């Protein structure tokens, strides 16, 4: 008789990182938790089902994008992987 064991390890109470928008830290935490679970349990395993974190992401983004504007952080209009374009392939 062979038993297959699934072992779950979850370290509780990881400390939180602040958001650049002070009011957004809780929303960020909620989204991060959802994302981390989806990433490890679905995305990496090749599951193509839709990402379940859309709602919490929207709420978080509304908050953080406003903070970015208020603080004049020049991140808008920066191309994805922009500076990588002029670098030779590794």
């Amino acid at each position, binding site marked *: 008789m062979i038993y297959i064991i*699934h072992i779950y390890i979850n370290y509780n*109470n990881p400390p939180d990182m602040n958001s650049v*928008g002070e009011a957004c830290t809780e929303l960020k935490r909620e989204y991060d938790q959802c994302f981390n679970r989806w990433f490890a349990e679905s995305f990496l395993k090749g599951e193509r089902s839709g990402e379940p974190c859309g709602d919490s992401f929207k709420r978080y983004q509304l908050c953080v994008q406003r903070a970015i504007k208020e603080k004049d952080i020049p*991140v808008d209009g920066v191309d994805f992987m922009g500076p990588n374009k002029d670098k030779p392939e590794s």
Partner: protein
Amino acid sequence: MVKYFSNNTDIQNAWEHVVSAFWRRYPNPFSTHVLTEDVVYREVTADHKLLSRRLLTKTNRLPRWAEKVFPTHLARSVYIVEDSIVDPLTRSLTTFTWNLNHTTLMAVEERCVFKESALQPATTSVKREAWISSGVYGFSRPIQEFGLARFKSNQTKSMKGLEHALLNGHGMYTAAVTGGGADMLRLKIKNEIIHVMSSLRLKSHLPIVTLTEVPVTFPHSVSSLPTLDRYSFFNPYSKGKFFGAAHTFNTI
């Protein structure tokens, strides 16, 4: 004048663990200079890649001689953009990181590729490259040297931070044991759990001292699986409550 720096290293952990830890590496004891962290863009592409952008703010730590010469730069933190692509098919994570402001003083661009090792099992190879430059006339050389020294120090901190996040494993691990009586089975399961913990390098914690059979709340993806027994365990010596659970089901 651009200074280029590159190095290769191996992390003794499976690629999936490294990539999961990549998202969880802040805060850590080596990242006190990182003040804030935010995901500001995320997309899953049609070919199943994950694109993300993180915005970080860090304290601007200049050597004292630079502080005297550039006092205005002390006021604002440094804004860092980290763009990344996770490709679960080719088992690679590529990141590109650069600073948005203070670029005249110093521009640091870094590219990292984390790839599942082709040669060694449960190992991830990391290639890091950096391009460091300064646009300040007359101070270019000392600033670049400082930038390179600080980059190397940050690189060490960054790897330590990633390893720290790897210790706080979150996920499911599979093992197989052959059965005997219920007591023997419990002992074997306990040993498997200890083995998983040490493979995650949780050696700083004492081994599990209690293995109890209690109803536990499993992650939703699991609770529908058929089970024979469920075990939960905790380590009373760890600071945060360390929770783990195991369930078994028959084969053969």
